[in-house]
């Protein structure tokens, strides 16, 4: 094959993007130090150029995959000529180097979006872009110096590639990483706003208003990304679980928990001007945990199904990057954050305090997860042995914390800002509370299988509490002059988010308590009964796929009346190039239950070990997550974010920008 120069062009574009990021970072910094307003104006075109160059770079790497250019090491290691084209496409972010390029491209995309935002004073925009530029420089140096996706194998070009990891040959994996990165990287924007505010010393409510939509959108993407990942693990790994407390899952949960806290405290800061220094700290911490997660996954310090290559040199570089970014921003925080107490007062029963409670619980939950995740590392470093922290630790601590959070989730919306009389609050919640307690504690836990179970009672009580208080608030708000139209989009967003959370709790409660997992030996023609359903292995066979061969099985399911309900066709695939076996599960899904059949190992010529799972309400976990994510987007569409705020500063640049 002729040598194509695409990779060299891609790398060249990447280096130029680094130059542009430097302009974007340094010019505003220099400009604000030397009071040269014109220099601030460099930030915006530099951000555009950076985005364009990274788009080119990313496109050239993608092209190398699509034309099977195995002289590119990254392509040779992660693709194969027999791979279907859409997986060649998603293989671009299937491993370390390419996913970093995706990360950078998404950061440049967010930066581009910020640079287009209207109504931001020029100096604020320049500072925000400058901070984003610094983040981009650090990560781009990491890519160019340690993880170049464009490295070639020359002159010994492999004849074919080592194939994409079969685990990643799945539609879920086409979308999961981009969604997740949109979330992780999106928090960089909030981080940049926070640092820009510290830099200028103007930590006002305007800052909170600018940050809110970005935070919500990033949160929406992160929520969707995590949900997609959970869904993928559920059907692709063949274990039938939806959350494993794996270090990498935890790494995504940390910024999610802090991001959730941040969304709520930003509301307090914007509306009431309270908790400013706390909110700034959260904004820094949220992006810091996203970087920390990045480090945990990429440096190989933790053992995980998702972990990337184990490379101490890369790890060291990343740790220095992490130290510089997080350390410096926390230092700036410590030195610059105003210590003046806000003049606004609030009493114990108020939305302010309940939202603060939400924050405290979420931060404690974050620390719980963080501690459990890095505990093996700490033990190992102190020579106290290699241990692992399992789900029992997380479940024992995390579940009660979330239950407590749910109580405040119901109370918060119904409470007034600043202060509220206890009897007024009691009037609002007594009905919801009564319905919740009677139905949730005494009635519903019996319904499913006729016996009372404490965890089901707690879970369902919580679900009802969130749902009833949300509807109560909806009714309350709609009674104003404007009626239902008086409910703002951001309020609808809040309702959606909370109802989504309730659905997640519903799913988790049901599947954790009523799910059943059976590993059974199935011989052809011999029925096996699980949860009243009768499963029969009808036949075993083989088939050839594009880059794998598979053992196939046909399993019929009959309901208790003996009627044929569904035929399952699970597969066990062997991917040729990597020699990796994969289970392809077959799922009968529905709103009330999933029935899940996966092939294990052959135990005889006509018998197979099979895994049959009964998963009630498991889909609600993902539906709830998507509803919550969409709700966050809805909140951002609220018109108050589109109203231009008259700008205080009157320098020429600002006027020039408003003119066009």
């Amino acid at each position, binding site marked *: 094959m002729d040598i194509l120069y695409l990779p060299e062009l891609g790398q060249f574009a990447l280096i130029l993007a680094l130059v542009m990021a430097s302009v974007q970072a340094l010019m505003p910094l220099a400009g604000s130090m030397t009071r040269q307003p014109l220099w601030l104006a460099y930030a915006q075109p530099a951000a555009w150029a950076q985005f364009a160059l990274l788009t080119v770079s990313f496109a050239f790497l993608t092209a190398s995959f699509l034309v099977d250019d195995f002289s590119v090491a990254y392509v040779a290691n992660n693709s194969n000529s027999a791979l279907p084209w859409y997986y060649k496409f998603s293989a671009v972010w299937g491993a370390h180097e390419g996913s970093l390029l995706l990360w950078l491209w998404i950061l440049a995309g967010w930066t581009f979006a910020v640079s287009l935002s209207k109504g931001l004073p020029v100096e604020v925009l320049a500072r925000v872009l400058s901070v984003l530029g610094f983040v981009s420089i650090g990560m781009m140096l990491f890519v160019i110096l340690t993880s170049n996706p464009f490295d070639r194998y020359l002159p010994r070009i492999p004849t074919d590639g*080592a194939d994409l990891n079969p685990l990643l040959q799945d539609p879920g994996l086409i979308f999961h990483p981009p969604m997740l990165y949109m979330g992780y990287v999106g928090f960089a924007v909030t981080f940049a706003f926070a640092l820009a505010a510290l830099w200028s010393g103007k930590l006002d409510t305007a800052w909170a208003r600018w940050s809110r939509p970005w935070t919500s959108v990033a949160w929406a993407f992160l929520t969707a990304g995590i949900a997609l990942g959970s869904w993928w693990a559920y059907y692709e790994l063949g274990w039938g679980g939806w959350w494993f407390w794996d270090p990498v899952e935890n790494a995504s949960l940390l910024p999610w928990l802090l991001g959730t806290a941040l969304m709520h405290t930003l509301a307090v800061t914007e509306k009431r001007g309270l908790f400013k220094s706390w909110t700034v700290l959260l904004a820094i911490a949220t992006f810091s945990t996203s970087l920390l997660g990045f480090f945990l996954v990429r440096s190989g310090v933790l053992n995980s199904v998702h972990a990337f290559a*184990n490379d101490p040199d890369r790890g060291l570089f990343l740790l220095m990057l992490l130290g510089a970014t*997080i*350390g410096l921003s926390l230092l700036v925080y*410590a030195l610059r954050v105003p210590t003046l107490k806000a003049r606004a007062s609030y009493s114990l029963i108020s939305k302010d305090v309940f939202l603060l409670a939400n924050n405290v619980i979420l931060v404690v939950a974050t620390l719980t997860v963080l501690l459990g995740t890095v505990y093996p590392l700490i033990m190992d*470093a102190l020579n106290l042995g290699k241990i692992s922290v399992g789900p029992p630790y997380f479940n024992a601590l995390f579940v009660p914390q979330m239950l407590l959070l749910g109580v405040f989730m119901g109370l918060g919306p119904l409470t007034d800002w600043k202060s509220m009389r206890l009897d007024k609050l009691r009037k609002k919640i007594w009905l919801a509370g009564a319905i919740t307690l009677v139905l949730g504690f005494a009635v519903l836990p019996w319904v499913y299988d006729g016996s009372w179970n404490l965890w089901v009672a707690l879970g369902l009580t919580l679900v009802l509490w969130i749902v009833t208080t949300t509807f109560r608030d909806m009714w309350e708000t709609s009674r104003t002059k404007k009626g239902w139209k008086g409910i703002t989009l951001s309020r609808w967003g809040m309702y959606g988010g909370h109802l989504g959370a309730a659905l997640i709790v519903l799913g988790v409660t049901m599947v954790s308590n009523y799910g059943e997992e059976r590993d059974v030996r199935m011989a052809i023609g011999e029925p096996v009964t699980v949860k009243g359903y009768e499963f029969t292995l009808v036949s075993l066979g083989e088939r050839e796929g594009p880059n794998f061969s598979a053992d196939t099985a046909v399993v019929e399911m009959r309901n208790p009346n003996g009627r044929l309900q569904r035929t399952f066709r699970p597969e066990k695939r062997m991917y*040729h190039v990597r020699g990796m076996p994969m289970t392809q599960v077959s799922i009968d899904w529905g709103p009330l239950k999933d029935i899940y059949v996966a092939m294990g190992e052959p135990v005889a010529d006509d018998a197979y070990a099979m895994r049959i799972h009964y998963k009630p309400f498991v889909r609600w976990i993902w539906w709830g997550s998507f509803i919550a994510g969409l709700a966050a987007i809805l909140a951002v569409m609220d018109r108050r974010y589109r109203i231009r705020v008259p700008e205080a500063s009157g320098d020429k640049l600002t006027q020039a920008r408003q003119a066009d």
Partner: protein
Amino acid sequence: MKRALLFLPLIIFMGLGVFLYKGLGMDPSARESALLNKPLPEFSMPRLDNEELKVTRDDLLGEVFLINVWGSWCPACYEEHDEILRLAKEGVPVVGLNYKDERPKAFRYLSQLGNPYTVNLYEPDGVRALAFDLGVYGAPETFLIDKEGIVRYHVSGEITARMVDEVILPEVRKWQNAY
């Protein structure tokens, strides 16, 4: 006082950073081959260069040697090939285990890069022989076998110059001098 309190997040982060730094030097998986310190499994396999000639476990025993699993499809094998050549030059017998490959491609690989192997075993895709019994799940992998036929050391992944000098050669010498 209040200002001092604001440094708390920075201090916590720096504490965490120390542990992360220590963690970098450690390998959490340190996956050891299940066959370590166990006898090399029995096998009888064709040579790469001649389908008719079979090699068995007993043919190889008697001296300390390495088994290097490779394939022309495996990019990291190209990378580590110079080190295998160097090992052979140092007088360490290296038995090649050509894995999931095709003969013409394997021949081209050896003629282009040089052949450091005393003998090459051939285990094409679909055959379950020595590589399967050794638990090989990718290439390259390298095993050190002592005079008695016991697996003494195992590397999964690419061998670097540093590993050859600091670990592999000393290990080979150690087992050559044992017994």
